[in-house]
């Protein structure tokens, strides 16, 4: 019933067909077609490995950020206990930036996890189809004349080819996702390089660049709220005007 399928399916299907035309000529000899299928499977495996590598890198970065969040929180408390509110505020601002980045990373790691799972499933299906193709081509070769075999194998190759195109599509989506994540990871690395998550006690003067970034990135009202909460917890009214923590960094 050609021509009766809906518009969306028609768009997708025609594009898949064009991908198939590019990918292989089903009229190629059976063994060559099978060889090409095995090569495709290898590429898929490599693609999955790339996704896993990207995911691991982000997970490591995420762990480092978690440590920064804990560290900056501790430092904010210490600074506040020592009566250095300005330093506490800076620490909380940085914690805020780190938390925002962390959320973004975690979300993307989860998304990539899903992509990886789908890719692995697709790879499994492709492998099964290729196995089925190998069996079938031997049967067809034995039972039919060359001309008939060519026709029958073309049909089977189209079935495998469609699965291959589908895995290709999944690969493409996973790669797009990986690219987005790489951008996110690079952004976090830049913040790290700029010292955003550095030990505050080591902070010297002339950090305007960082301060400007912080001013842009962090929401000051959130920081105010957290600072107020921390003060309440510490009963800050009694804290002396000591600034030991800040001085430690000037050396």
């Amino acid at each position, binding site marked *: *019933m050609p021509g*009766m*399928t*809906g*518009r*969306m*399916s028609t*768009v*997708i*299907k025609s*594009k*898949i067909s*064009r*991908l198939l035309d*590019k990918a292989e000529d089903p009229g190629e000899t059976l063994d060559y077609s099978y060889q090409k299928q095995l090569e495709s499977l290898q590429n898929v495996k490599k693609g999955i490995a790339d996704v896993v590598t990207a995911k691991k890198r982000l997970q490591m970065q995420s762990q480092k950020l978690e440590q920064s969040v804990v560290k900056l929180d501790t430092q904010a408390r210490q600074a506040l206990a020592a009566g250095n509110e300005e330093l506490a505020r800076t620490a909380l601002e940085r914690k805020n930036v780190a938390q925002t980045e962390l959320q973004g990373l975690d979300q993307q790691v989860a998304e990539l996890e*899903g992509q990886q799972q*789908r890719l692995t499933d*697709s790879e*499994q*299906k492709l492998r*099964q*189809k290729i*196995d*089925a*193709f190998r069996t*079938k081509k031997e049967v067809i070769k034995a039972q039919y004349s060359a001309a008939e075999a060519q026709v029958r194998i073309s*049909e*089977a190759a*189209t*079935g*495998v*080819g*469609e699965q291959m195109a*589908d895995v290709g*599509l*999944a690969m*493409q*989506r996973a790669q797009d996702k990986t690219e987005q994540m790489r951008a996110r990871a690079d952004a976090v690395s830049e913040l790290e390089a700029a010292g955003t998550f550095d030990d505050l006690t080591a902070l010297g003067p002339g950090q305007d660049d960082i301060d400007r970034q912080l001013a842009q990135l962090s929401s000051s009202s959130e920081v105010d709220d957290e600072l107020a909460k921390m003060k309440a917890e510490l009963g800050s009214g009694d804290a002396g005007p000591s600034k030991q923590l800040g001085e430690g960094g000037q050396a």
Partner: protein
Amino acid sequence: MIVRISNEGQYRLDDGHHHRLDELDDAVVAAVEADDEDAYHAAFEELLHFVRTEGEPLDADDLEPSEYILPPADLTFVEAGEEFNGEGLIPDPAPPSAA
């Protein structure tokens, strides 16, 4: 007839469902063209649900090509729009454009 949901699998559906599939498919396209994201998600979900519940999953070692191919379930509204206006999910073969 055989229907594939991309990145998911193939299903065998009774030929009598053809008309209903067309309707559901057209509803998705209409929602995209109307720039109605909620309607798009509802329509696309309904389409996928129909295939999954009415269809019989094909074995992984089945070699039959599909008559009907649907995009992956996680297709976003933006991607759906690109599908019909731009290059979309599956890029067109390299255009002979000047570079």
